[in-house]
């Protein structure tokens, strides 16, 4: 079970140029809005036609520009869960699901209805359902069609945060049971981490190499990665005679190897400590600072601080009780060496 996708498509000034491969796993396409995530899914499903390239689903070539192969969406057997669910508005829940089932399998309809918690809603029209119910119905309909792979296009973005969590659990369990390749599109880094195994980062229509989510989240390598996983403190950096320098933050750290292509560094906002909480064994850089502004959050406060002898502002998320003690000690913060990430462009 696998998916191979290497396509190019021009849309006005925008060029989509993606290449990735996935096996039996849950892969997320992650990127900001307008980066071409959804278009990639639509090309794989056959709803849009790429200009060139090749798409192979489970060993079957469904698109090959050179060999002039372009199977219709009907023949590709790709399950596609649309962001706005795309239920047939004139059909009841039951008919929406029945419509896509093979005739001899329609006797199983009740099983689908109860498996997706739709019991009692069979005779309702989509306009009479809540967001979560619509999504369950769309999920049931997609599964009833017995797809070869499934693709989820920002499946939770139309739901409010409480329902989102609940539906996420339901979708994860449905997807696990499915057991074949799953492509999941999202811009939400936390969602991607919870749901997927591997991540393909996309930007301006291009993608980076597929990587495991742990590698991406714990050790991002590029500026784009760092932005996507939510790093807030990023500044320019360069290497000079055994040291990495970041003048915006007034940082200087030893680094014997010349890190190839180094252009930025990033400090995780939640991992900065006040110096009084460190032990002598902590390998950290110490910086004097002054507080520029304080924004109160629910469980922690967000400080904007200016390191001494530098102009850049660093964002520091600090526990409320720690913040309360801060004024008793000298204004020195400690940045653990492990929390300073070196990035390429």
């Amino acid at each position, binding site marked *: 079970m696998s998916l191979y996708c290497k396509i190019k498509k021009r849309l006005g000034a925008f060029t989509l140029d993606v290449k990735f491969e996935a096996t039996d796993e849950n892969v997320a396409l992650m990127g900001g809005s307008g980066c071409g995530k959804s278009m990639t899914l639509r090309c794989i499903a056959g709803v849009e036609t790429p200009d060139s390239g090749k798409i192979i689903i489970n060993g079957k070539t469904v698109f090959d520009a050179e060999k002039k192969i372009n199977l219709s*969406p009907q023949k590709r057997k790709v399950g596609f869960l*649309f962001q706005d669910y795309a239920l047939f*508005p*004139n059909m009841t829940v039951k008919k929406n699901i029945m*419509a896509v089932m093979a005739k001899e399998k329609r006797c199983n309809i009740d099983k689908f209805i109860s498996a997706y918690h739709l019991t009692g809603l069979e005779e309702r029209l989509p306009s009479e359902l809540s967001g979560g119910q619509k999504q369950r119905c769309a999920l049931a309909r997609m599964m009833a069609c017995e797809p070869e792979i499934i693709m989820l296009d920002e499946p939770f973005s139309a739901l409010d945060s409480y329902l989102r969590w609940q539906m996420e659990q339901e979708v994860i369990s449905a997807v696990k049971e499915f057991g074949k390749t799953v492509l999941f599109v999202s811009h939400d880094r936390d969602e991607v981490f919870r749901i997927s195994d591997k991540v393909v980062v996309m930007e301006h229509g291009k993608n980076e190499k597929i990587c495991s989510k742990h590698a991406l989240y714990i050790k991002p390598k590029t500026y784009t990665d760092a932005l996507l996983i939510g790093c807030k403190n990023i500044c320019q950096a360069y290497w000079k005679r055994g040291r990495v320098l970041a003048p915006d933050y007034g940082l200087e750290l030893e680094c014997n190897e010349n890190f190839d292509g180094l252009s930025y560094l990033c400090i995780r906002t939640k991992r900065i400590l006040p110096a009084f909480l460190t032990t002598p064994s902590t390998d950290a850089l110490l910086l004097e600072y002054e507080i520029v502004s304080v924004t109160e959050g629910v469980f922690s406060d967000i400080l904007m601080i200016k390191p001494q002898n530098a102009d850049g502002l660093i964002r520091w998320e600090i526990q409320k009780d720690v913040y309360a003690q801060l004024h008793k000690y000298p204004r020195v913060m400690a940045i653990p060496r492990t929390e300073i990430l070196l990035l390429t462009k």
Partner: protein
Amino acid sequence: MDWFPLYNSLRISFVASFITFFIGIFMAYYIVKLPGVLKGFFDTLLTIPMVLPPTVVGFLLLKVLSPKSSLGILVKKYFDTTITMKWYAAIFAVVIVTLPLMYRTARSSFEAFDKNIIAAGKTLSLSNSYIFWRILLPNCKEGIIAGFVLAFARGLGEYGATSMVAGYIANSTATISTTVAYFWQTNQDSQAMNWVLVNIGISFVVMLIVNIFEKKNSYGRRS
């Protein structure tokens, strides 16, 4: 009062709008899917009768249907009759004049329908004809019915092209609109007024129906 013109008008308009209904929907369905330039061309071609004077449509129709045209000569030779100056000649005229109305309302209904629902149907392996008959048409029915009624009403009042291809022959090709013209030209104002009132009554009811259908929100339309 001789009710033949009413009967004849209704008969012409029903047959013509029935034909228009199917041609209009299918044209709309296929033209929406065409690429840019071709779409613009066919769109203009189908819409042009709406802005042409009906006499121009009538004139062109006579060029095709009259006994002197090649089609007319064939019909004369094999069926020993003519197409023009018969009650059914008006059907040709009415179809051409009402087609833009049906086509345009159907097209805007199709264009307003959520494309993702069509795409979803395709990825769910539903055939294109199933998607058209069971999903697209039922969800666009308000717009399509409004288009049909509008075409019917326009057909009922058609005068210019009809009078050129079918003329006015009492009890044979007379329609409401040609009858009004005939009575007025022959100084029978009160007779003409009767038919004017009948015509206003019918038009009023028809427009009322169109409004009722257009106000109802179609399903699947993005608000």
